């Protein structure tokens, strides 16, 4: 009993600490510079939010402006890998956080709005009528911040479940340690997500995938809320990859009945069948598309709102408004913790639903 209580206390403390440090993260940049004009502060907060939401080439832990008015970054550089008539690998520290031009084998590269462009020796970027850069972009395989975090999450998951599996082996099927923590969640996914939606007969084939995406999305979302502040689901490419897995598995494990229901819906008149076929076919693509957009939009919107409210503290700049927005940010932070789990749950249950449709057997016809 006593032990339980201390665990609760530690979790609460950790949460508080992470919260304070997120707020601190902003404060460093804004208070040290003490801008007098409100417009400056607003644009600064906007930049900070954009910086947080987008992927970057450096693992930037935090940055602040020192006494001489120089911006100091604390973090470590990551490798940049480009394919531009041959492989080019160099450290992202050569970009100096997007300020410097990099010269590799007579080619010049520059970071502009978080994308690498090929430029001339002066680093000019040409724009078209819509103010979009027209410079060529080399193929970019860089290990960015998000990629590093995906590797980290992969390692965490690997060791977590390896330990869990070994725990079961050692204790003759009794959960211990990591197993005790994760068993309820795994059982919940099996009994409340997989079996009701896919069916007793086929659910086993899909369990490994459902567990993987559930834990991946959940851990990634939790990392996004941690002081590290790397949210991988903010990049649509990641959610696209997750959704495409669901799409591929649905398509390749689908039974005859599934395709029959798409192309030649039984039980309806022939003209209706012809109208329904393209709609149903489009539906198979819309389903994973909505999975992608939902996860991406939920996480991005949540982070932008949370950061904006933290930014309000510095705009109000008096104790009443600031403590009010701190309280709001605190409550919203708790809500985001719920959303982190909820989005993982919804992604998993909808995937299970689609798999269930693919393997469903229609005996009634």
């Amino acid at each position: 009993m006593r032990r339980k209580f201390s665990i609760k206390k530690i979790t609460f403390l950790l949460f508080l600490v992470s919260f304070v440090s997120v707020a601190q993260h902003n404060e460093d940049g804004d208070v040290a510079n003490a801008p007098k004009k409100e417009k400056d502060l607003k644009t600064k907060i906007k930049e900070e939010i954009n910086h947080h939401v987008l992927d970057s080439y450096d693992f930037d832990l935090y940055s602040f402006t020192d006494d001489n008015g120089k911006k100091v970054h604390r973090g470590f550089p990551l490798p940049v890998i480009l394919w531009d008539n041959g492989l080019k690998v160099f450290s992202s520290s050569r970009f100096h956080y997007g300020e410097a031009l990099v010269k590799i084998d007579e080619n010049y590269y520059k970071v502009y709005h978080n994308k690498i462009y090929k430029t001339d020796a002066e680093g000019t970027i040409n724009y078209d009528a819509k103010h979009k850069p027209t410079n060529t972009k080399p193929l970019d395989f860089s290990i960015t911040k998000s990629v590093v975090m995906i590797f980290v999450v992969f390692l965490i998951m690997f060791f977590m479940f390896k330990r869990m599996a070994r725990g079961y082996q050692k204790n003759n099927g009794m959960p211990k340690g990591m197993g005790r923590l994760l068993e309820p969640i795994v059982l919940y996914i099996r009994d409340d997500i997989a079996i009701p939606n896919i069916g007793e007969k086929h659910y086993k084939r899909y369990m490994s995938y459902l567990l993987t995406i559930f834990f991946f999305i959940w851990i990634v979302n939790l990392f996004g809320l941690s002081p590290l502040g790397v949210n991988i689901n903010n990049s649509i490419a990641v959610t696209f990859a997750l959704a495409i897995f669901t799409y591929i598995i649905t398509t390749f494990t689908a039974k005859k009945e599934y395709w029959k229901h798409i192309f030649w819906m039984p039980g309806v008149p022939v003209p209706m069948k012809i109208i329904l076929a393209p709609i149903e076919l489009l539906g198979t693509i819309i389903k994973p598309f909505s999975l992608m957009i939902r996860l991406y939009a939920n996480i991005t919107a949540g982070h932008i709102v949370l950061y904006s409210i933290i930014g309000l503290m510095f705009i109000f700049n008096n104790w009443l408004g600031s403590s009010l927005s701190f309280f709001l940010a605190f409550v919203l932070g708790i809500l985001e913790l719920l959303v982190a789990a909820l989005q993982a749950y919804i992604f998993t249950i909808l995937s299970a639903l689609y798999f269930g449709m693919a393997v469903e057997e229609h005996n009634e016809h």
Partner: protein
Amino acid sequence: MDITGLEMIGAGLIVIGAGIGIGQIGGKAMEAIARQPEATGKIQTAMLIAAALIEGIGFAALFAV
């Protein structure tokens, strides 16, 4: 007339619609749970799925702006 302004109004209308929809789902789920507390789990699952589908539309509107 300014086109961007109209876009904003359209997005606002969609968000209002999505809000009403999610409110309806939540309210009806509450009623259902009050009537049949033993079916809480099933009702919650169905409610979350429906709410997520509507939410998708709301976000699509926000991103179209």
